């Protein structure tokens, strides 16, 4: 749309060229002045101008309160809508805190899943062992906190099945994950035991492709995209709040759908 502040008749280009140095110097001076006063204000208050400490901690306190409300709203028996396999987006949409060209593939042969915390049998798992467990499939909507969404088809081992298999304490509060791309994450036990929470090994009919977390990633139908770590290398069951990559940067922890 045309801006109402633009003149009806565009001035001659020569006029603009004539005044260019003057406009430049004005902008530069304004920028320096603005930068100085903004900087000194920040130094005076000793904190971020945009986000003072008191405001930040109040917002985080409400965010933690909202985590509790979201846990109450979460119905462990409520299933997310599923879709026909024909609607699966191929390939899946890649998203991470870095570009797809920086993905470092993981070797499936040497890959191990390390276990720790409130688990009876902490022996590490191989990909073959996971493939030997009963497999489940789901075609679900991936919803990103940014607003976009797509339909993906995931297969693998239900996390509930896996946790029972290794003798995890199912009354613990959290299940935490570590990954090959340094993207720690954690979820509540209720979501971990939800039937649409998978340790996913396949997308569509194929093993996971490298950018999407080969050999194993977490995939949940009931949480926002950023709660689903790829290239999972370690799993811990704990009662101590583990946090996560985006959570440490201010994003909400529960992030339930």
């Amino acid at each position, binding site marked *: 749309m045309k801006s109402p502040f633009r003149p009806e008749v565009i001035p001659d280009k020569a006029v603009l060229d004539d005044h260019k140095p003057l406009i430049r110097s004005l902008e530069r001076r304004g920028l320096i002045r603005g930068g100085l006063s903004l900087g000194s204000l920040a130094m005076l208050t000793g904190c*971020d101008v*945009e*986000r003072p400490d008191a405001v*930040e901690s*109040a*917002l*985080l306190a*409400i*965010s933690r309160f*909202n985590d509790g409300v*979201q846990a109450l*709203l*979460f*119905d462990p028996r*409520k299933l*997310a*809508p599923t879709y026909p396999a024909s609607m699966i987006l191929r390939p899946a949409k890649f998203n991470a805190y870095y570009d797809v060209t920086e993905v470092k593939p993981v070797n499936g042969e040497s890959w191990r899943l390390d276990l720790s915390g409130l688990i009876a049998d902490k022996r590490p798992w191989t990909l073959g062992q996971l493939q030997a467990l009963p497999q489940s499939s789901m075609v679900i*909507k991936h*919803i*990103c*906190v*940014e*607003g*976009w*969404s797509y339909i993906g088809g995931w297969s693998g081992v239900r996390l509930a099945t896996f946790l029972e298999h290794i003798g995890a304490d199912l009354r613990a509060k959290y299940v935490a994950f570590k990954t090959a791309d340094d993207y720690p994450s954690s979820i509540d036990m209720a979501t971990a035991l939800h039937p649409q929470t998978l340790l996913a090994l396949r997308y569509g009919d194929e093993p996971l492709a490298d950018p999407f977390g080969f050999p194993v990633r977490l995939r949940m*139908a*009931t949480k926002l995209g950023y709660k689903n770590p790829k290239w999972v290398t370690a799993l811990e069951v704990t009662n101590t709040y583990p946090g996560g990559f*985006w959570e440490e*940067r*201010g*994003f*909400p922890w529960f992030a*339930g*759908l």
Partner: protein
Amino acid sequence: MDQAKDAPTAASSAAPAGRRLHPLPIRIMHWVNAAAMLVMITSGWGIYNDDVIIRGFIFGSFWRLGDWAAWSLNWHFAGMWFLVVNGLAYLIYGFATGRLREKLLPIRMSELVHTVIDTLHFKIAHDDITIYNAVQKLLYIIVILAGIAQVVTGLAIWKPVQFSGLVSLLGGFQSARVLHFIGMAVIVGFLVVHVALALLVPRTLWAMLSGGPRLAGRKEPHPSSGHAT
């Protein structure tokens, strides 16, 4: 028609003597809502930028609350409590005291047309700020409904699995998002008109701070006597 006209005036004459145009609870709820709405709108603009709905259209940093998406989200999820709790209190108060019906009904088509024509002729003087003209009534009803719609569509995009029935009623997750955006646009459109008129007729702004003129003892108002003639 006479009965419909008499009902609100009966309610206002039964009110305690000396009641002001905007009783204290209304004034508090108005300004809490104003702050909450601004927080919701400007933090929503910060969230919007990460996945734009209108291609090529983003909100500049001056207009956004929160220096990046995480903090815009935190503002939005904090502001929502103030908006919802205050909005519920307003609706309960408005229905219980009869204020909503008294101030916003009835709306007559002929009066609506008349007021629009007057406004187009720049006759927008408010002789009596205690009575809303048909256009005002309609705009207030629209913005109250838009506010309720924002809570419903907001709930759908916040919890699309827990409220999956609501989401499919709204035509899916992405269409619920677009509806949430349209609801914002309606409210912002209202705000522009509302603030401009309050500044043009500063008595109305002062009334929302101090309470405005006392209503007791006033002659039975005729619904069409409020707007400019």
